[in-house]
């Protein structure tokens, strides 16, 4: 099959699967799956920019997604004025102290020659700096977290529309990627992977424990929404009229009481679907923009250079390409895309829960998407995002259904049956691993292989 035919076939299968979910479970579930598919596809594009274009093995995806989520909180939540008043100045002082400490460490590092004296001086400066920052930072945190800890206890955000946070999330992730890249990009490929894995765990640890920033494990819930609320829709006259006109057949020939009840049920259902459709529209717009930009970049001389670096670093370097700087570029760009997707995810959930970030779901699963879809092919990464998310989310109900069907003959309180049903909930990782291994083995270039452009 040609690449185009494969892509068409792949997306047709995805559409059929979503239809099947819609008909079998409900349209609401189907749309919820679609929304997460779209977000996953954007994340997969980010990883594809890093791995597919440039061959960077970044296993820290989770951190960038979480930083995007943090942006959603910091942009959209209203500011907590009492906390700002209590600790704002102190926190600024701590920031100044941190700058001073950085200078303290930087000075001997730059001025002294390599060797034991420099190592001692830097270590000493770091210890002193750590102490100075602590003196300013600890009281600031204490003051902020003391403000109404059960409902706020953090600085709050800027109170701006949450859609803005998608761009800010990208900037956050890009900034973090730059800082991480400075340390890690000089390393060998496998050390780079382990380093990014470590950094992502640290970022999550910070988000969990720095309550003054985004309430840590106490979570921030009830975030602002870019789309209308279901309750408002159900009250809106135009929406009810819309539902009435769309369901003329169902509503025809009912008594007055039945009519009102039926209309209410239909409106409730339709409002949920309408909200999810609004989200889907927004996410699709972002996905298309990112996809178009990625595609343009890949087909440009810049993309060609990236592939050259990926395929033979030494040769590219000999031709005068600055491998370190190109790697940094692609690392920052890819991470920014992941950050945007992270902010969209938190927007969709309406809450920021640092505990929910685990590497299996937010790092390795995204990797599976890229490899299954086809590394180096943007459309492939998108398709991979769709296929893998659908399998991930539908694995559990399918496994439960299978177990139920197989064990239907057993007594309902049979311990073996209970154990199987309990276990069925955890088949997801097995399925994911198997898909990854099978694709790597039998179709190593993915469902839609990379096309070599000139």
């Amino acid at each position: 099959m040609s690449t185009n035919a494969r892509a068409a076939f792949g997306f047709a299968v995805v559409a059929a699967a979503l239809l099947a979910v819609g008909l079998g479970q409900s349209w609401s579930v189907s749309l919820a799956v679609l929304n997460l598919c779209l977000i996953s596809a954007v994340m997969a594009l980010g990883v594809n920019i890093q791995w597919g274009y440039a061959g960077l093995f970044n296993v820290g995806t989770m951190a960038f997604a979480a930083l995007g989520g943090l942006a959603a909180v910091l942009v959209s939540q209203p500011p907590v004025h009492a906390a700002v008043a209590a600790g704002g100045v102190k926190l600024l002082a701590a920031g100044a102290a941190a700058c001073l400490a950085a200078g303290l460490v930087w000075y001997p590092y730059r001025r002294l020659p390599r060797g034991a004296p420099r190592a001692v001086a830097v270590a000493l400066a770091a210890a002193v700096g750590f102490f100075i920052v602590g003196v300013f930072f600890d009281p600031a945190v204490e003051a902020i977290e003391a403000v109404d800890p059960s409902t706020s206890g953090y600085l709050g955000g800027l109170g701006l529309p949450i859609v803005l946070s998608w761009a800010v999330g990208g900037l956050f992730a890009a900034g973090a990627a730059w800082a991480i890249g400075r340390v890690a990009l000089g390393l060998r490929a496998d050390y780079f992977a382990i380093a990014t894995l470590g950094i992502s765990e640290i970022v999550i640890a910070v988000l969990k424990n720095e309550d003054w920033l985004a309430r840590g494990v106490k979570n921030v819930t009830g975030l602002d929404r870019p789309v209308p609320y279901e309750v408002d829709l159900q009250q809106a006259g135009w929406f009810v009229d819309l539902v009435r006109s769309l369901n003329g057949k169902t509503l025809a020939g009912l008594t007055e009481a039945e009519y009102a009840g039926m209309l209410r049920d239909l409106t409730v259902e339709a409002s949920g679907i309408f909200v999810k459709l609004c989200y889907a529209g927004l996410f699709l717009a972002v996905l298309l923009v990112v996809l178009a930009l990625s595609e343009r970049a890949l087909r440009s001389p810049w993309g060609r250079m990236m592939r050259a670096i990926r395929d033979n670093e030494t040769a590219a370097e000999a031709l005068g390409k600055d491998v370190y700087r190109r790697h940094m570029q692609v690392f920052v760009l890819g991470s920014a895309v992941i950050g945007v997707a992270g902010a969209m995810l938190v927007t969709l959930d309406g809450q920021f829960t640092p505990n929910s970030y685990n590497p299996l779901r937010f790092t390795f699963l995204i990797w599976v998407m890229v490899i299954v879809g086809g590394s180096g092919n943007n459309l492939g990464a998108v398709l991979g995002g769709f296929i893998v998310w659908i399998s991930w989310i539908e694995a559990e109900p399918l496994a439960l259904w299978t177990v139920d069907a197989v064990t239907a003959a057993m007594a309902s309180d049979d311990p073996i049956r209970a154990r199987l049903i309990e276990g069925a909930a955890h088949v997801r990782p097995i399925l994911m691993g198997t898909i990854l291994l099978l694709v790597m083995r039998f179709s190593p270039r993915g469902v839609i292989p990379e096309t070599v452009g000139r």
Partner: protein
Amino acid sequence: MDVDIVNAAVLLANFVVVPAIAYGSQLALGALGITLVYGILRFANFSHGDLMAFGTMVAILATWQFQAWGIGLGLLPTALLALPVAIAGAVIAALAADRTVFRFYRVRRSAPMVLSIASVGVMFVLNGVVRVIVGPDDRSFSDGARYLINAREFKTLTGLSEGLSIRTSQVLTLALAVLAVAALFWFLRYTRAGKAMRAYSDNEDLALLSGVEPDRVVLLTWVIAAALAAIAGTLYGLDKSFQPFTYLQLLLPMFAAAIVGGIGQPLGAIAGGFLVAFSEIAITYPYKKFLHYVLPENLRPDGLVQLLSTDYKLSVSFAILVVVLLWRPAGLFRGRVL
């Protein structure tokens, strides 16, 4: 004043030294497996943490079975009896993974990165299997005497105001780790197969020319790595408690230990394991009480004197990793030669 110094020393021993020795031994055993696979099969094996979880799961199931049969070791945990079963289980899992996944890429001489990504697939499968079989919750499987030295008994015995408690599992960890490491070093140093493994790690082509059989070396590497993983995982589970996800999180400190020590250097992996464990615990321990014993009254601090909150344990192993990579990229023991 003298009593205060002794009290301070006991305090530190109880909360820092003893736990760090146990944790360090567990990390060292895990890191040994990682460093062997890294040095001989030449890829970063991301599935090692879940291989540990798998071995521990087998140990738990065997322990329950032994308990059901009424077989026990008295004061020692029954899990010790289950350990051979766990080792067998982990070895079978590792060999199955090698046969079905890793061998294909090894024969084709794929890039190390491809093998690492394949190990992510193996990690997913093992993680799922463990969760399907024992579930994602905490499983406690330790029995026998909990303490070798109880804090209260220690206090009455010595008359000190600080207690020292040493758990059976901690002593067991150290004893088993010493035994396993001694056996491993003897094997690598004095047996033909061990020498073949070292030769293969040092220079693959030269070793092949000298008649080293590659399949045997690979087989032995997996057997040893999996056995060590099962021991490390079971000991960790006995010492703390078993939860499938914690083993995924052990991956980072174990990698840090292996790289810090120098890839392919067993001695380095052990040193790295203890370095990581001691720094993690020493940096996250609050020194308030310790300083109250040692310092004169007017200098005593009010705060906890904790350098980092316990939740940042992971960042300590990571900081060590980065510093070593930047300052001495081959590791403390100049790695890559077994």
